[in-house]
């Protein structure tokens, strides 16, 4: 869990229609100056390596990028950047190599499948998409192995034809050496975006299952969500994504944001007001105690056998945009859990969701959260094993 450094806040060279940072962009001042010393001091205080983030991280002038990455290499031994890839030049690539920069690239598909990542007009959008595609190819050629983030929506997987083209593109990425891709279900910030781009539960589920099937045809590229669901059902929650880890929206422990002026901030996914709230002190797990008890018809998770694993998912995707509710993608995740559970049982395994230890795990999670602790499932299983040994 590292630091997300945002020297230019959420400033970006494109305006993806669904971007979860638009609430901030809509109301914030357009450009804020950044202070190198304050940023470095804040990173050191946060005590970890950092990912250069945005908005678009590569809008930072190249000489400042060099200063940050040379410092990052010296301090932490490597660097990371998350970018849309459209601004990557040979000079950037040289710096990625020199300063050991791991590159994460957000793109929703080739050509018109990426139109939702809108750059003001169609011509510019397609041009920048092409630049992003070229950057992926160049990075792969240089052996830099970028990881890809793909958000799913009607624009890229809304029809069987589009899904097929996405599949072909993924195969190409696999061929050129991309090893990891993360699939995001679209987080909706406004009803107009929902109406145009959001997939139905059925479409989201079918799409994820399509990619799951596709994974078996790929040489090396893997989508992490499928393996994560299986790990959770095997009671192994070590090293999984933040969405499964009972994230507190006031502290977002997986995202320790540092702004250009050194101010600490939270993950933008939970920011619905458009205000970059200063990170709170200690985390609270009230959302998870509440979801455990609240009936499903009221937006909670009461009685769901997958709750200990899913925990209502990311608060940024909550029903009605209210973090006190469970995720609006509940049925999609539930279907994936059910299918994986079914397969595991068929293979003779006992998933956590049907295991006799589940009530103990749930009880211990609630106890921990009530005391401000967020125990891992793994640690609770170990605790149960220890207790059994003693008795």
């Amino acid at each position, binding site marked *: 869990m590292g630091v997300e450094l945002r020297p230019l806040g959420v400033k970006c060279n494109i*305006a993806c*229609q669904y971007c979860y940072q*638009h*609430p901030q*962009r*809509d*109301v*914030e001042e*357009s450009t804020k100056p950044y202070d190198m010393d304050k940023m470095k001091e804040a990173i050191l205080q946060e005590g970890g390596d950092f990912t250069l983030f945005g908005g678009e991280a590569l809008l930072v002038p190249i000489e400042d990028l060099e200063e940050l990455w040379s410092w990052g290499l010296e301090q932490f031994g490597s660097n990371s950047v998350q970018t849309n890839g459209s601004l990557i030049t040979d000079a950037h690539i040289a710096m990625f190599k020199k300063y050991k920069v791991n590159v994460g690239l957000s793109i929703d598909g080739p050509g018109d499948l990426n*139109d*939702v990542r*809108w750059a*003001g*007009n*169609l011509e510019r*959008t397609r041009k920048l998409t092409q630049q992003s595609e070229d950057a992926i190819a160049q990075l792969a050629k240089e052996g830099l192995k970028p990881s890809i983030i793909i958000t799913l929506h*009607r*624009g890229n997987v809304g029809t069987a034809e589009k899904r097929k083209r996405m599949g072909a593109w993924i195969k190409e990425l696999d061929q050129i050496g991309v090893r990891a891709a993360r699939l995001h279900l679209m987080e909706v910030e*406004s009803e*107009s*975006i929902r*109406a*145009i781009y959001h997939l139905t539960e059925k479409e989201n589920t079918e799409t994820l299952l399509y990619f799951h099937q596709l994974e078996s045809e790929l040489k090396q590229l893997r989508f992490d969500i499928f393996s994560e669901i299986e790990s959770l059902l095997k009671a192994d929650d070590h090293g999984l994504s933040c969405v499964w880890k009972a994230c*507190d929206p*006031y*502290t977002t422990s997986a995202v320790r944001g540092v702004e250009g*002026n050194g*101010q600490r901030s*939270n993950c933008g996914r939970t920011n*619905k*007001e*458009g*205000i*970059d*709230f*200063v*990170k*709170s*002190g*200690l*985390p*609270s797990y*009230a*959302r998870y*105690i*509440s*979801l455990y*008890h*609240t*009936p499903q018809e*009221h*937006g*909670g998770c009461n009685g769901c056998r997958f709750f200990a694993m899913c925990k209502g998912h990311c608060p940024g995707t909550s029903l*009605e945009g*209210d973090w*006190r*509710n469970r995720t609006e993608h509940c049925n999609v995740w539930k279907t994936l859990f059910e299918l994986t559970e079914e397969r595991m049982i068929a293979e003779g395994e006992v998933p956590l969701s049907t295991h006799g230890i589940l009530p103990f795990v749930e009880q211990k999670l609630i106890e921990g959260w*009530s*005391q*401000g602790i967020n125990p891992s499932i793994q640690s609770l299983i170990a605790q149960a094993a220890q207790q059994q040994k003693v008795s």
Partner: protein
Amino acid sequence: MEVLDYNIPPFKTMGWVSDKAKETWNNRFEKINGAIIFTTLKALVKGDWDSQYLIVEGWSYFKILELAAPMEITVKATFLGNENVKGPVYYEVLLTNKHTDPDTLKSSCCIACTTAIREKNRKEHVWQAVLNTKAYQQEGQILSLSSGSDTSVFWQRLLVTIGTQHRCSLQCKRYASLQEALFDKLQVFGYEQEALWLSEMYSWPVEWCASHGICELRTPIIKLAYDTDPTAIPHTIRVEGDNYPTEGAPGKRFPYRKRKFLRITDSKSFKAGLQHGS
């Protein structure tokens, strides 16, 4: 208001809108808290008041104990919550001067209301208090109050507040005169600046929203979440304000000051993208 059958353990978590807002107002909060405590104690010693209730957080309670003893003020405290459960600690403190017996005090509508709510094991009563207020507007589960209502109850988790924990209405004449008396005495005892800050805060727009046992209170400079009664659906109270602080943030929703033009989503080019996507 459908209340579900579970209890969220006590908690409080806060988010300032900016470092600047925190630097400015955190210090002011401390000064206001000190001013209310000192003013109340001095008014009791002087005999302006025979008794007074304060709602205070744990550390303030111990400060009051320390200050009250040499002034011959009796402190009778009610712990608000469950002493066996870890979390933030609040007290309702009844202070009486040496001429007054705390056990023979007359009851009032606020004391009766507070007792009744506690007997029901409820944490808050503001929703009903607004429903008992004459001038509110209702749209579904959102109640809107005009400015001029008593908003001090919303600040109980952040500031020392005067009066009992609960009140039956937010436009109670008795409460209005109590607040008025507090502001007068703050000035008399040399806390003019603190009185101005407090008065300013009470005139800001505020949103209180309870759902699933978690209340989220939004003010222009800080938002906080804390435990409340577990309702099945969100219940929201909005108090329209007269003022907005310099340190207050612009935002996309109430109570934050909205921009007339949203830089991205109102722009022509963004709308052209929507048109292309649809």
